[in-house]
């Protein structure tokens, strides 16, 4: 019993982070119908920014956890958002009206550029950040116990807060309304006076900001990263986005949580060797019965 509970906690924290990154994939797909393969590497960049921010803040003598965490979050989200904006500007906007394939190649190129640029500028070695928040709470369950570190609790809190704020922005604000309009019909939206290029830019910035939030949280929790960390987690988050229905915001969050939970439960209860096989089989099965994902809407062919 305690083991199952612990696995649920493991899966939920991992899944909430997958969800945060999946948001970037799903929003970009929703609005311009492309898969931004450089998104995993945007996450990777935010890991490095986290380390830089922590180093700067401690250098200037700020040692308390709340100051460091908020300083790091603000710095990382702003700079990573800028990366998202530049990437869209440089790699995707010039190809706005070309075929989907060109944009896809451009995205893969962007991913390689980011990886190599970080590898050359920051070195190829494994990097680490010091542990900021230590300690854990422990519940006794039956004979065993469930142990949750404060960092894990903070991840859950921050991830769901991030998702909540984003849902509010998309559903209730003017910017969100313009995003939704552009997603539904870009031409019509621009006829109605929406600067769709600007909306697309802001979607990239929002996606990058969510990846940055995930990057800060994961980097603080695991403490280790290198220039290649974006790859595996990017693939997983993309899977989560497809699982939940690509293009759907709640779908990305749901997909992330389902993927995280299924990985943790399968690894914990059956075999960790085959957990990825299981996750992808789950994806295949869901796509067979619901081709557009759990919460996705079937694509209507526009004539």
């Amino acid at each position, binding site marked *: 019993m305690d083991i199952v509970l612990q696995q649920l906690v*493991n899966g939920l924290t*991992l899944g909430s982070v997958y969800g945060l990154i999946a948001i970037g994939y799903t929003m970009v797909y929703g609005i311009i119908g492309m898969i931004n393969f450089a998104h995993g590497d945007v996450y990777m960049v935010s890991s490095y920014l986290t380390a830089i921010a922590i180093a700067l803040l401690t250098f200037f003598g700020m040692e308390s956890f709340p100051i460091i965490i908020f300083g790091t979050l603000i710095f990382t989200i702003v700079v990573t958002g800028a990366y998202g904006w530049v990437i869209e500007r440089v790699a995707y906007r010039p190809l706005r009206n070309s075929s989907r394939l060109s944009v896809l190649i451009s995205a893969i190129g962007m991913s390689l550029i980011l990886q190599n640029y970080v590898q050359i500028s920051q070195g190829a070695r*494994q990097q*680490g950040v010091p542990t900021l928040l230590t300690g854990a709470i422990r519940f006794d369950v039956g004979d065993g116990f469930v*142990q949750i570190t404060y960092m894990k609790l903070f991840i859950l809190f921050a991830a769901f807060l991030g998702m909540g704020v984003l849902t509010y922005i998309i559903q209730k604000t003017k910017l969100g309304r313009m995003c939704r309009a552009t997603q539904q019909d870009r031409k019509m939206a621009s006829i109605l006076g929406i600067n769709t290029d600007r909306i697309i830019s802001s979607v990239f910035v929002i996606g990058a900001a969510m990846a940055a939030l995930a990057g800060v949280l994961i980097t603080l929790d695991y403490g*280790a*990263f290198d220039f290649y960390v974006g790859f595996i987690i990017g693939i997983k988050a993309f899977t989560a986005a497809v699982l939940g229905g690509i293009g759907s915001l709640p779908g990305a969050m749901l997909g992330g949580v389902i993927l995280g939970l299924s990985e943790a439960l399968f690894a914990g209860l059956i075999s*960790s060797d085959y957990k*990825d096989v299981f996750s992808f089989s789950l994806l295949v099965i869901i796509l067979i019965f619901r081709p557009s994902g759990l919460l996705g809407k079937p694509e209507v062919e526009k004539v």
Partner: protein
Amino acid sequence: MSKAVVRKTLISLAVASAAAVAQADVVIGVAGPHTGAYAAFGEQLWRGAEKAAMDINAKGGINGEMIKLVKADDACEPKQAVSIANRLVDSDEAVAVVGHFCSSSSIPASSIYEEAGVLMVTPASTNPTLTDRGLPNVFRVCGRDDQQGDVAASYIVGDLGAKKVAIIHDKDTYGKGLADAMKATMNAYGLEEVLYEGLTRGEKDFNALVTKIRSVDADVVYFGGLHSEAGPLVRQMREQGLTAKFISGDGIVSDEFVSVAGSPEYVDGVLMTFGADPTSYPAGKEVVEQFRSEGIEPEGYVMYSYTAMQVVASALGANDLDPVAASEWLHSNKVDTVMGTKQFDDKGDLLVSDYVMYEWDANGKYSMMDN
């Protein structure tokens, strides 16, 4: 017409000078993960080999020929190892190679060196398959995983008296090979493992696996793999309140293990098997001091790499720079190195291996255990 003559002369001059350069140097490749997640080990190999080459060149090179080192980066990926091995053999015209690091790279690359008649001495690849295939040109100056597994297993069963052992590996040639070697010896002692699982290289979240280790109540966790996965794994174990002893092999011998684990407190008490302190040999005292005076700590494989370069140089020197003859010569002759006198068997393994247990302390340093 005169133009053509001039051009021809220029070309022949260029060819002649290129040939002269090629003749004057002995090209030796240093192959390993110079980039990527395991670049720290590539750096260790390069430092040792570079220093050895400089020292040998300062004493007049190999039979008067200067050693020229070529850095070959395999990123610890088998595919890249093969292409880099082809490059070393074809365009760099290397006669010998010090490397590779990862067994999964060394094994495919060794076939290419064999075909080309290039001498290969690895400072670090410990998987038994590498030499068990009987290639005449392959040597290692480190031990084998079955020897390493033996030492770990007898420590776990004998000294620790463990009852419940969980074995984790990274599904790679080295990691799984080491885990299997340890498992075989442990089973021969009559102790069955309570858990045998693989994890994915490159991931950082092992919480689900850690919870599973907790569920089987293991008192020892044996890990076959490298530090970049060992660090997060041991950290997440401690974070979930799992106090089981963590034991691994020579894949975690790097200061980076501490930074990847987050802080020295997590690596405190971690055990590993590694060759008896490579800096403790009397023959290497001077070299170790020179390293330290240059501000370089000869950790991990630095001295092994130095040794491998010495083996290459002695063998080539005694055989007129012919790598094929040198390979044959090495099977029956002793070489004096900074890590003592080395002697190889028919397969290219060391006759004597010297694995011992090391322990990491709360300052993030490792030292030999007195046993």
